[in-house]
């Protein structure tokens, strides 16, 4: 017989939060929700309250001075989770502003205790706490009294059979505040502002009894309330890989499949790098269309720099028929975890096996500046997450033609991918021609040919090699000199 206490975990009703918390909110825990003004503390609290409060487990929401209760009710009801019917039933609001204004913290504490005793709530929220600091600093009680008050409240809250939340514009996180020690959970909300962009981030600094996910997790607040984007690895790990028909995914360009050694190995990530107009998106469309032809579905994540540009008609048709899912997020300030979640949600919905990300440059631009600085790391997380979901990924990368060096992506992303195809322009006999080569296919034989190709009505056609030309990658190939008579060579060396 086990003597361990069983800790029930409550599902918070906030998408992504339970994952980040490490499996929900422990029942009867005492939690702090802290953050700067406007960071979403009250919204998060209300969302949790409306999701968790029931007739058997009613909630009391104490409003201290912070936000006038009328305004709070006015703005909170804009969110979908708000339920006016619940008020005075499973949810009670209690204003403590008058008691707080007196500066007499004992009286505030007594009011809270009285209400809790009278109604035995299962959930208690006290919002917000910074205001209590001010009230007591203005009064004669001094800061010690406040610390004592918060500590007393914390201990009381722990003793109630209730899951409790102290919401507050909190003091500095480095502050050795006693309440941080008392609290079982510490949820810190932040806003990271860089240039003209703002990204909301959440950190679970502490959650007793379970392993929460460390680090900063981005979240968004919209009409539905708070949505937390759990790390890509967690999101992808929870899904089973799709069924893979055949070991290799065909590209829709038979000659290219030959060059790849029989198609792209399943689960690989492929980088298609080339200059503007070289047909990267056309190759990507062919890849998705071939999937559909083989009875698979795909997802296109379009981060185009010209959103109004007409898309390939074949692709438009596939999207319209629901065989290819389109992610065309125009949300500003995307985080990598949000994008991964968007893609994986679509992958699961369609049971997709192929994903195209077109293009990396557009993708980088749509990320919030704070993530652009470590774009390579973000990209690695994306590729890893999609790889663990078992999909085959094709990414395009716009590459300025530089004829003095051979590069595959402006991000040093080449090492992240399992396969690379490069496209280039060359000049031959006063004409601009295109060549294509398979640079790398991890753990697989592949062709090393540099082949001409053209783009026609029916897509990409791979042509011949140019064996009598050399210096193709320099952009201006020259005709190889005919082998010279050996005698002249010897003579030349003699000089």
């Amino acid at each position: 017989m086990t003597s361990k206490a069983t800790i029930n975990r409550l599902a918070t009703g906030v998408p992504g939060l339970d994952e980040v918390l490490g499996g929900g909110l422990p029942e009867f825990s005492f939690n702090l929700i802290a953050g700067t003004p406007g960071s979403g503390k009250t919204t998060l609290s209300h969302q949790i309250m409306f999701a968790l409060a029931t007739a058997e487990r009613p909630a009391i929401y104490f409003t201290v001075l912070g936000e006038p209760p009328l305004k709070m009710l006015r703005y909170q009801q804009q969110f979908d989770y708000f339920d006016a019917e619940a008020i005075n039933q499973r949810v009670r609001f209690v204003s403590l502003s008058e008691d707080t204004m007196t500066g007499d913290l004992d009286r505030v504490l007594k009011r809270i205790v009285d209400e809790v005793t009278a109604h035995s709530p299962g959930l208690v929220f006290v919002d917000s706490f910074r205001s209590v600091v001010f009230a007591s600093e203005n009064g004669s009680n001094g800061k010690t009294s406040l610390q004592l008050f918060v500590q007393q409240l914390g201990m009381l809250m722990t003793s109630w059979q209730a899951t409790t939340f102290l919401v507050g514009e909190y003091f500095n996180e480095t502050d050795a505040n006693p309440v941080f020690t008392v609290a079982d959970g510490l949820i810190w909300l932040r806003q990271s502002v860089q240039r003209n962009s703002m990204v909301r981030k959440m950190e679970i600094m502490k959650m007793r009894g379970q392993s929460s996910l460390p680090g900063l997790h981005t979240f968004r607040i919209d009409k539905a309330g708070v949505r937390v984007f759990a790390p890509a690895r967690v999101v992808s790990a929870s899904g089973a890989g799709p069924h893979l028909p055949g070991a290799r995914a065909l590209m829709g360009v038979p000659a290219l499949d030959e060059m790849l050694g029989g198609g792209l190995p399943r689960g690989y990530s492929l980088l298609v790098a080339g200059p503007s107009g070289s047909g990267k998106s056309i190759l990507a469309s062919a890849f998705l269309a071939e999937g559909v032809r083989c009875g698979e579905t795909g997802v296109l994540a379009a981060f185009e720099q010209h959103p109004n540009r007409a898309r390939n008609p074949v692709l438009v048709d596939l999207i319209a028929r629901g065989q290819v899912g389109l992610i065309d997020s125009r949300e500003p300030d995307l985080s990598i975890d949000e994008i991964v979640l968007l893609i994986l949600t679509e992958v699961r919905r369609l049971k997709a096996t192929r994903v195209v990300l077109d293009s990396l440059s557009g993708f980088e631009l749509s990320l919030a500046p704070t993530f652009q600085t470590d774009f390579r790391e973000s990209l690695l997380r994306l590729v890893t997450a999609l790889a663990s979901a078992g999909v085959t990924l094709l990414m395009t990368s716009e590459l300025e033609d530089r004829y003095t060096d051979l590069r595959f992506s402006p991000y040093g992303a080449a090492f992240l991918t399992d396969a690379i195809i490069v496209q280039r322009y060359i000049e031959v006999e006063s004409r601009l021609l295109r060549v294509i080569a398979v640079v790398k296919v991890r753990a697989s034989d592949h062709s090393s040919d540099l082949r001409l190709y053209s783009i026609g009505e029916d897509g990409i056609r791979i042509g011949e090699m140019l064996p009598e030309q050399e210096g193709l990658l320099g952009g201006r190939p020259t005709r190889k000199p005919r082998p010279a008579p050996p005698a002249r060579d010897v003579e030349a060396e003699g000089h």
Partner: protein
Amino acid sequence: MPVESHQSRPWPAPLADRVAGDASAEQIAGAIVAIWQEMDQSLNPIIGHRGVAALFNRSLHLSAAAYPWLTIGHQGATTAIDPSALQAVLARQDAAEAARGGIALFQQFRELLASLVGAPLTDRLLRSVWARSAGASPVQDTTS
């Protein structure tokens, strides 16, 4: 659930259920103040004394446009209103005028609150007052 700035649902008539048709101004004044105190009680815990006082003073000010004798509060005050002042001013009118003024005042108060938190929530918050007044005809739950 968006906030509705104006609502068209009829105001339950708490007054009619509490006083007889031939009630005196005194009786009407007493009923109005009683209703007011019940509303105060329902709202106090949620929005605080000062919040209710501010709303009530504003309602008095707005109602005074049609009923100048209602000019007893002062706008902007966040101190609690003296119910006896309201009772006295009501009792000085004739019965019909007092009833009209009182109803206008409640209507104003309700519209003000509804403009802030929406009609469904307003009705939700004040439901206990209607329930107590309505007696035989319970208030319909129209919010769902």
